[in-house]
């Protein structure tokens, strides 16, 4: 009964979204205020019914209702309750429902928190989101309903969830990522509304900017969590594989980063409007493209969903309608290059434009590398692979050059800056970062290393320019506190995010240069030395988990005879599907991780294959990602986005 209610609620949500897609939009075109005012209640209704549907699916999981096909395939009665619930999005159908839920949630949020928006703008924005919701909910109902039943006979127990997914990572990673993917639909909807109404002024940028920043922050957080999850869960200590699925999330993030910057220019200076619109369209389109790549099976990936060309076809249609439609609209209605203000060669505008070019080229490079095997195959030129060596070779130089521009852009002002001012702010950071970069490999490593020199210099350059610019702000200030409070939230957000980039860059540089790893055959009492640490194998014992049995090894780690930590990597065998899984054990630290994974037993269990890793500064990767996301959130929390709405209310009153 409950699953049927879920399905029914979804059908109602679909009907509401169809109405939302049509009525307010029509109202906005004909200036019919009553029709426009339907937008808000419709957005709420749509959200409510998808929530009902989602709760029904959650109930089916919690109650072990294995008559529901999706539940039977992705759950098992032995699974702990938190994994049963997160298994809701452990497969294609449920994760699509989560997608729809978040989409309707964003729509509802826009309808609630955009009091400042003129009604026609709001009506258009919500209608565009209604169109997207119509597409996705009908996709759910037609090809991927999670409520289908095994009737009349159903399995006594579920087939269990892939053990990789029975983890904390599954609980947090997909919701965050989808918040980001779907969040770009708001920026997209604002862009379409702007194109339709012909209103692309600074006000438009101001409305759409906080939404975009929040979505961007969530996407970044989602990617960071995904990287961290892969690192500890897959058992081989990698944190980025350039897999199509990862690239699918990186592309919208890169374009989103460009969008966040371009929106800042459009808001502050009223320029680059058509470019900003294009980026808003692309950011969401790339999110959709990612969905297509992950769910259609056109590319092979380690973590793709069970793929199905029919579903692929449906998403491709959605993609063609949204992207084809919006780009056609763009081609006809985008403003011709019309400037509201001027700027000189050495200005923040130009540097941000340069940054946009770099970010866009990076996104295009990822797209090219990801799709190239498909292009070659479609042209009948055979099968090739494009993997990490390619991406590293192409990506790193572009990223490094952009980092240099990042430092400069912080030091220049809007409109115009004299060369002397820039040199005055930048010479000290330049000297410091180059010197430190030069010294670092000698102090930390065993000798000069070009990669470390470049990586550290560039990272310190980003940090020191931000800091030097910050200090520069106090030169003319009367008191410290007055100055601190004068600086806007978005300024602090920018600083934090830029420092985040540097922190991530330091992490990447050091972990990829100074990591050490050994694969060892270890019997009881054997020990191995790695990066000054002594790993001693103390044998294994059998332990029993909720739904698995495991061989658990005990490995003592000492440094200069001092005990550091005792690690317990496991090799698990899950009861239901009998699949084996390596559960690594990690001693995490700010400056280094010790990572141990257990392989196969050798010689009938006398010895084991063991892999030990030493991963310096690996945490910095994710720390930087978190800083970037926090920066994005801070910027969105800036007073001016709230102030304008308060002023608005007073006008109404």
């Amino acid at each position, binding site marked *: 009964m409950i699953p049927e209610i879920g399905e029914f609620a979804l059908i109602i949500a679909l009907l509401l979204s169809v109405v939302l897609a049509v009525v307010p939009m029509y109202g906005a075109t004909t200036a019919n205020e009553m029709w426009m005012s339907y937008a808000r209640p419709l957005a709420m209704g749509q959200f409510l019914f998808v929530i009902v549907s989602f709760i029904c699916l959650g109930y089916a999981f919690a109650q072990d209702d294995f008559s529901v096909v999706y539940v039977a395939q992705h759950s098992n009665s032995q699974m702990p309750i938190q994994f049963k619930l997160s298994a809701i999005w452990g497969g294609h159908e449920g994760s699509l429902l989560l997608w729809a839920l978040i989409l309707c949630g964003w729509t509802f949020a826009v309808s609630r928190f955009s009091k400042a928006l003129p009604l026609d703008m709001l009506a258009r924005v919500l209608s565009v989101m209604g169109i997207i919701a119509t597409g996705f909910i009908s996709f759910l109902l037609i090809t991927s309903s999670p409520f289908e039943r095994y009737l009349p006979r159903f399995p006594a127990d579920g087939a269990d969830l892939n053990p990789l997914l029975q983890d904390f990572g599954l609980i947090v990673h997909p919701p965050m990522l989808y918040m980001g993917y779907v969040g770009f639909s708001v920026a997209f909807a604002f862009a379409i509304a702007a194109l339709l109404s012909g209103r692309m002024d600074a006000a438009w940028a101001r409305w759409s900017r906080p939404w975009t920043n929040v979505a961007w922050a969530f996407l970044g957080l989602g990617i960071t969590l995904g990287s961290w999850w892969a690192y500890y869960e897959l058992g081989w200590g990698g944190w980025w594989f350039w897999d199509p699925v990862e690239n699918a999330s990186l592309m919208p993030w890169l374009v989103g980063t460009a969008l966040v910057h371009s929106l800042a220019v459009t808001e502050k200076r009223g320029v680059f409007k058509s470019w900003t619109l294009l980026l808003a369209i692309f950011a969401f389109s790339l999110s959709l493209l990612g969905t297509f790549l992950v769910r259609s099976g056109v590319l092979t990936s380690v973590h793709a969903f069970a793929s199905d060309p029919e579903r692929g076809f449906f998403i491709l249609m959605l*993609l063609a309608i949204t992207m084809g439609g919006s780009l056609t609209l763009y*081609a006809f209605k985008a403003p011709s290059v019309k400037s509201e203000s001027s700027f000189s060669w050495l200005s923040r505008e130009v540097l941000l434009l340069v940054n946009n070019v770099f970010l866009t080229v990076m996104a295009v490079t990822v797209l090219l590398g990801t799709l190239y095997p498909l292009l070659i195959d479609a042209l009948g030129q055979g099968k090739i692979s494009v993997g990490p060596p390619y991406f590293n070779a192409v990506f790193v130089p572009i990223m490094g050059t952009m980092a240099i521009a990042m430092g400069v852009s912080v030091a220049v002002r809007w409109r115009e800056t004299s060369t002397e001012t820039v040199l005055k702010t930048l010479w000290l950071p330049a000297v410091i970062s180059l010197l430190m970069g030069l010294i670092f490999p000698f102090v930390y490593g065993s000798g000069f290393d070009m990669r470390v020199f470049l990586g550290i210099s560039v990272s310190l350059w980003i940090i020191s320019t931000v800091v030097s610019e910050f200090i520069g702000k106090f030169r003319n200030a009367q008191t410290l506190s007055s100055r601190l409070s004068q600086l806007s939230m978005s300024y602090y957000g920018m600083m934090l995010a830029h420092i985040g980039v540097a922190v991530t860059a330091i992490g990447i540089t050091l972990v990829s240069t100074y990591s050490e790893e050994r694969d060892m055959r270890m019997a009881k009492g054997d020990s191995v030395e790695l990066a000054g640490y002594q790993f001693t194998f103390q044998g294994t014992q059998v332990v029993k988990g909720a739904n698995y049995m495991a061989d658990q090894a005990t490995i003592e780690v000492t440094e200069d005879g001092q005990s550091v930590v005792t690690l317990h990597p496991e090799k698990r065998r899950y009861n239901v599907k009998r699949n084996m899984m390596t559960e690594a054990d990690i001693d995490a630290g700010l400056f280094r991780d010790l990572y141990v994974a257990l392989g196969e037993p050798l010689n009938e269990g006398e010895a084991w294959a063991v892999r030990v890793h030493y991963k310096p500064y690996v945490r910095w990767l994710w720390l930087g990602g978190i800083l970037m996301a926090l920066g994005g959130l801070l910027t969105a929390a800036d007073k001016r986005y709230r102030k304008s709405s308060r002023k608005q209310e007073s006008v109404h009153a």
Partner: protein
Amino acid sequence: MPRLLLFIPLVLFIILAGFLWKGLSIDPRELPSALLNKPFPEFSLAALQQPERILTKQDFMGQPVLVNVWATWCPSCRQEHAQLLTIAQTNSIPVIGLNYKDDRSAAMVWLQQLGNPYQFNIFDEAGMLGLDLGVYGAPETYLLDAQGIIRYRHVGVITEQVWQDLQNMIKGWGSVNE
């Protein structure tokens, strides 16, 4: 002119969508053999049923043959076995077995129980001939012409349909040779 430039994104997207649409009908996992139209690799391995007999390429050159890679650990091989027996009964083309990374006694039992469609079996215990051949998993079937050149590789189960295709291919050569 600038107005026309605004159509560039749309045009690029249409091209991209075209490729994606084409991509839906391509299986990214299906790998063509790197040895296509190249000679079957040289080898010297024992026969499965007569360990003392050493087989080389010369043992099947001179006529088109099918080389079928199989193993007892491979469930799909069991599925295609009946079809292989049917092919053997037609006597139209010799079927050579390449017993890949298998256990000799288990393989013998398999042939006794399920029937033996093979003229003879190459016993590739270490999988090194398989490696030279670019095998990445059983079952795989190679079609060789009389000169021992690999003309086609099929990965996966041989079905009636695949057999039809193979026959057409062989017929095609006949007409070219005449």
